[in-house]
C-alpha cells in the first residue's frame, strides 16, 4: 500500500471516521478512477467516432486517401440528388414500418394466446422466444437456405400443398423485398409477444371481472381494458424495434446483398456500399447524419415512454 492510499482510505490509521471534506475528495478521486476504464473506451470508440462522422460528412473523404478537403454541404446535396440513396431511405422506412406493424399485430395475438391457461404454457413461452434468442446469422442463413429456389423447403411445401403452381425464386425477383420482411417478422415477433405478455400480466384480473359485470363482451374488454393496459409497453417495443429494424444491416446483406438490382437496398446497406465499395467515405458518413434528426425524435419519445413507466 502506498502512503497516498493509506491516507485516502476511509479508516486510514486510527479507527475514526475521516473528516467530511477529506471524504468528498476521496470519493471524487476513486469515482473518476473507477469510471476511467469504461469512460476511456467509450470516449475513444463511440464519442470520438460520432463527432468524426459529422466532420467527415462535410468533407470529401475517400477511403485509402489521407488528404481530404472541406466541401460544406456538398455531400448532402449529392445525397439528395442521388435517386439510389433516396430510394434506399424510403425503402428502409417502409421495411421497418411494415415489419413493425405486422410484428406488433402478431406479437399481440401471440401474447394473448400465451396468456391463456393451458398445460405446457411455460414450454410454449420458451419455444416462442427461440427465433429471437438464436444467433441472428444462424436464422438468417437458415432462411436463405429455405428460400433456395431449387432445393429450398419453402417452394417444396408450397408446391405440394398447391398454394403455388411453379417454384418461386424468392430472393432473386420482386419477391425479395417481401421475403426479407418475412424473415425480420419471424425473428422479431417473439420480442413483441414476450414483452406484451409481461404487460398483460400486470393488468389485474378484477378489471376484467368488473368489465364483464358491466356487460362488456370480449371485444369490448380487449378494446377498453387490455389495449389501454399495454399501451406503454406497445409504444416502447414498437419504437425500439423500429430503430433496430431500420438500422438492420446483417439480415438483408446476408439474404440478398441489397439485390436483385437494389430492390432490397435500405440505408444501412447503401451506407456500406458508398463507403466500402464506392470508397466515398464522406458521402457515406452523411447518410446517418442526415437521418439523425428523425431518429433523435424517436429516441426522445422512447426515453420519455421508458422513464414515464418507471415513475
Amino acid at each position, binding site marked *: 500500500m502506498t502512503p497516498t492510499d493509506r491516507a485516502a*482510505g476511509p479508516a486510514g490509521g486510527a479507527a475514526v471516521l475521516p473528516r467530511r471534506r477529506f471524504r468528498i475528495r476521496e470519493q471524487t478521486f476513486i*469515482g473518476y478512477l473507477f469510471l476511467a476504464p*469504461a469512460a476511456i473506451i*467509450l470516449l475513444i*470508440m463511440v464519442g470520438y467516432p460520432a463527432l468524426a462522422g459529422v466532420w467527415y460528412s462535410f468533407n470529401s473523404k475517400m477511403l485509402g486517401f489521407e488528404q481530404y478537403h472541406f466541401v460544406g454541404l456538398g455531400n448532402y446535396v449529392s445525397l439528395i440528388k442521388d435517386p439510389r440513396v433516396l430510394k434506399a431511405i424510403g425503402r428502409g422506412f417502409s421495411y421497418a414500418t411494415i415489419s413493425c406493424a405486422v410484428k406488433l399485430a402478431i406479437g399481440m395475438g401471440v401474447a394473448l394466446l400465451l396468456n391463456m391457461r393451458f398445460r405446457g404454457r411455460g414450454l410454449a413461452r420458451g419455444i416462442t422466444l427461440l427465433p429471437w434468442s438464436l*444467433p441472428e446469422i444462424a436464422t438468417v442463413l437458415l432462411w436463405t437456405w429455405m428460400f433456395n429456389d431449387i*432445393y429450398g423447403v419453402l417452394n417444396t411445401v408450397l408446391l405440394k400443398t398447391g398454394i403455388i403452381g411453379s417454384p418461386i425464386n424468392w430472393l432473386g425477383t420482386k419477391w425479395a423485398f417481401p421475403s426479407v420482411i418475412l424473415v425480420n417478422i419471424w425473428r422479431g415477433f417473439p420480442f413483441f409477444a414476450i414483452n406484451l405478455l409481461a404487460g398483460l400480466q400486470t393488468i389485474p384480473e378484477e378489471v376484467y371481472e368488473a368489465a364483464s359485470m358491466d356487460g362488456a363482451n*370480449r371485444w369490448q374488454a380487449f378494446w377498453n381494458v387490455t389495449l389501454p393496459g399495454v399501451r406503454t409497453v406497445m409504444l416502447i417495443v414498437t419504437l425500439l424495434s423500429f430503430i433496430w429494424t431500420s438500422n438492420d444491416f446483417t439480415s438483408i446483406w446476408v439474404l440478398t446483398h441489397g439485390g436483385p438490382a437494389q430492390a432490397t437496398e435500405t440505408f444501412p446497406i447503401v451506407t456500406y456500399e458508398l463507403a466500402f465499395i464506392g470508397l466515398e467515405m464522406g458521402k457515406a458518413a452523411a447518410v446517418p447524419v442526415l437521418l439523425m434528426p428523425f431518429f433523435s425524435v424517436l429516441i426522445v419519445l422512447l426515453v420519455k415512454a421508458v422513464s414515464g413507466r418507471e415513475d
Partner: protein
Amino acid sequence: MHLGFRTQQRISHTFGLLLMGLVLLVVLFPIYWMLLTGFKPSNEIYKLPIKLYTANPTLENARNLMKVTPFLTQLRNSITVAFVAVSIAVVAAALAGYSLSRLEFPGRDFMASAVFFTYLIPGTMTLIPLYVMLARMGLLNSLHCLVIAYLAGALPFSVWMLKGYFSTIPMELENAALIDGCNRLQALYKVILPLAGPGIVSCAIFTFTLSWNQYMLPMIFNNTENLWTLPVGLAGLVYGDVFLWGEIMSGAFLMSIPVLALYVLGQRFVVSGLTAGAVKG
C-alpha cells in the same frame, strides 16, 4: 342459435389452442429444418423431390465443415474474442457502475447521462470513422479491434444495468465494511459483487451474445478468413461455387448451442437481474 356461456368459452379456448399450435409450428419448423439439413447426407439434401425427414442421419456435414473450411480457427477466434470482451466488460462495467451508483463526486450525473447517450448513438454513425481510426492505428485485421469494438457496444448497457443493480443493495452493508477497514475496491469486491451476482451474470451474458453474434464488424474490419469469427465464416460459405448447405446448417446449429445454453441456464438470473435493476426502490 344462442350458445351457452360455457360452450362459447370452450369453443374460443379450443380455437386459441389451435392457433397456439400453428404459432409453435411456424417457430419450430424452420429450426427443425436447420437440424435436419445439418444431419442429412448431402446426396439427400440436393435430391428432388425434397424429403421432409431423413432415414440416414449423419455427422458427415459437421466433419466436413471442420475439415475443409476454417471453422475451427474461426470458432477459436469467436471464443477468444468473446472471452476477452466479457472479462474486460464485467470488470469495467462493475467499476463504473459502482462509481456512478455509490460514490458522490462532481460531474457524476453528467457522466451517467453521457454513458446513457453513447447507448443511443446508432452504430452506422460511428462505423466509418471507427474504420478509419482503426486503420490508422494499424489495428484492422486483428482480433484486438473486435474486442474493443464489442466493448464499446456492450459497456453502455452493462454500466447502466449494474448502476441500477448496485443501487438496490443497502448502503449500510458497505458502510460497515468501510468502517471495518476495507478500502473501496475491497468493499466492492467483498460486499457488493457477491450480492450483485445476477447483475454480473446478465452483464456477462449480454456481452457474450453481442460478441458471439456480431457479423458486420468482423466482416468489415478483417479481410482474411483466418481472422473471421463464426458468423462471417459461415455466411462466407454461401456464395462459393459449391453448395455447402449441410455444412452451413450444421455450423449454424453448432454456433447456436452456447447461446441457447446460456439462455436456458441464465434465464433465471437475467430475469431477476433485469427486474431488480429496473425497479426503483
